[in-house]
């Protein structure tokens, strides 16, 4: 095949793949701007006859989606801050500080990665009930404050910190706390950004756990509210699409802004075997 023909074929394939992949998301956006009922036609219309924000107005007005949006933002932010605190300290310690049983504990943690989270879910619910955390923000966030994957992520990165750097600081008389805050944290910054996006997106997108823990409608996150809405409003395509846009857009924007960090996370995660 001639290089030129090959290039054309290659790009045709790439464009077809990209359009196919992006289509559901673009269509979602388009339908969300249609007046009620317009999408239920054959052939399905691709663009609104006249764009309207009525669906969004209804979501924020009658359906009170602002509240769920707020919940999602608060929960995802809270989870991110907590995860950074717990995992950065532990990840660094596993990488750079020698203590009795370190290897054994770390190996145990890695082995536990194969246990699906759902195994723990039912007793966890009863535990949270006992702690009085069912139907609270804390019930959603607290169980995930520290995670094996997060620790692993930070540890892999922290391994690259040269020991001499830490030793020099110790010889200068710096305490371990100072070393951590003044030397280690700045070096870890890129991986902490990665961890932050992972946690934020994970919490934002999480479905099963908040579905179980949150019973009060005022505490629902966007995905839960959307699932509830979609079961009640099966006929209202356009409204549901607007809800989907509101749910997806923030995470998509966050990803686009920070995708370099996100992709690093995937690559570190994929060598965990």
């Amino acid at each position, binding site marked *: 095949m001639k290089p030129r023909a090959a290039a054309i074929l290659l790009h045709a394939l*790439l464009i077809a*793949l990209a359009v196919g*992949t992006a289509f559901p998301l673009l269509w979602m956006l388009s339908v969300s701007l249609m007046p009620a009922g317009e999408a239920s036609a054959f052939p399905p219309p691709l663009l609104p006859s006249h764009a309207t924000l009525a669906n969004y107005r209804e979501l924020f007005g009658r359906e009170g989606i602002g509240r769920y949006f707020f919940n999602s933002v608060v929960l995802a932010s809270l989870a991110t801050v907590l995860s950074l605190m717990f995992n950065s300290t*532990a990840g660094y310690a596993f990488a750079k500080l020698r203590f009795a049983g370190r290897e054994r504990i770390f190996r145990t943690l890695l082995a536990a990665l194969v246990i699906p989270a759902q195994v723990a879910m039912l*007793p966890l619910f*009863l535990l949270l009930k006992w702690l009085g955390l069912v139907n609270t923000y804390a019930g959603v966030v607290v169980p995930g404050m520290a995670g094996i994957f997060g620790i692993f992520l930070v540890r892999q990165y922290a391994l690259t910190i040269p020991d001499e750097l830490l030793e020099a600081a110790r010889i200068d008389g710096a305490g371990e706390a100072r070393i951590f805050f003044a030397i280690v944290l700045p070096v870890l910054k890129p991986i902490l950004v990665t961890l932050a996006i992972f946690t934020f997106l994970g919490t934002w997108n999480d479905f099963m756990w908040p579905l179980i823990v949150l019973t009060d409608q005022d505490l629902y996150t966007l995905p839960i509210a959307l699932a509830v809405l*979609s079961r009640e409003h099966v006929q209202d395509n356009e409204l549901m*699409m607007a809800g*989907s846009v509101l749910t*997806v857009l923030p995470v998509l924007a966050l990803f686009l802004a920070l995708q370099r960090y996100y992709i690093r996370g995937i690559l570190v995660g994929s060598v965990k075997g």
Partner: protein
Amino acid sequence: MRVQRAAWALVTPALLVIGVFFFLPVLAALLVSLTDFDLYALADIRNLRFIGLANYWHLLQSPAFWQALANTAYFVAAGVPLSLFASLAAALLVNARLARFSALFRTTLFAPVVTTLVAVAVVWRYLLHTRYGVLNYALAQIGVHPIDWLGDPHWAMPAIILFAVWKNFGYNMIIFLAALQSIPADLYEAARLDGANGWQEFRHITLPSLAATLLLVSILTMAGYFQLFAEPYVMTQGGPMQSTVSVLYFMYEEGFKWWNLGSASAVAFLLFLLILAITALQLRVTRRAEAA
């Protein structure tokens, strides 16, 4: 000594959280799976009985559980290869020497991964609508009769697989891309000097270099696909005719719909054992293949 103390201080909070909110519940689940914890026990703990392995025994005799298992196996057996194929194909295209705007394509193809599953499942439910769905419209253009994607027991699972592949293939594409980029360029140059064509290059250089990544990715993807839940929850509610009830969906219904926590915990452990066994098998087969 000082370092030792500092290390413990740094590690303990995280270990405590993981211990209390993960290991403890897992152990508890193991115990609960040996009891008949249910609604009555929830009302009054004296109504709890220790029943040994009876939950497991009943599950293994329950047609509904086997159907959930079969549905999940179907999803994994068809979904994982499809998903890997899509990821690899996308990675090869984006990574091709001639490709321009690779970054843009990579981002576009990856976008579904970060989207909220519930939200895009809602979108797909409309794309798959029998009468007004875009997919059936497209198929009609090539003469295919409308398919009742989510209402026909034969088509519901394929629809969910299609959706899952769309949602996930970008993730593995990134991993494959990184692996492709780490293959030394001189290998290809040498091959070209020997007069190898594109297919031969792929067959003899690319594929062998990707073997380790492929194994890892397939294990991770499989473990993930075994945990199918939110897709059927949002799109089909397990129907039609239970054809999209996955093992986890079954567990959810047992546990949080009927509050048979004992039985539900047993389901969770059976799933865990299954994933473990298949992973071990996969590793062993590969090692043997490598040794041979």
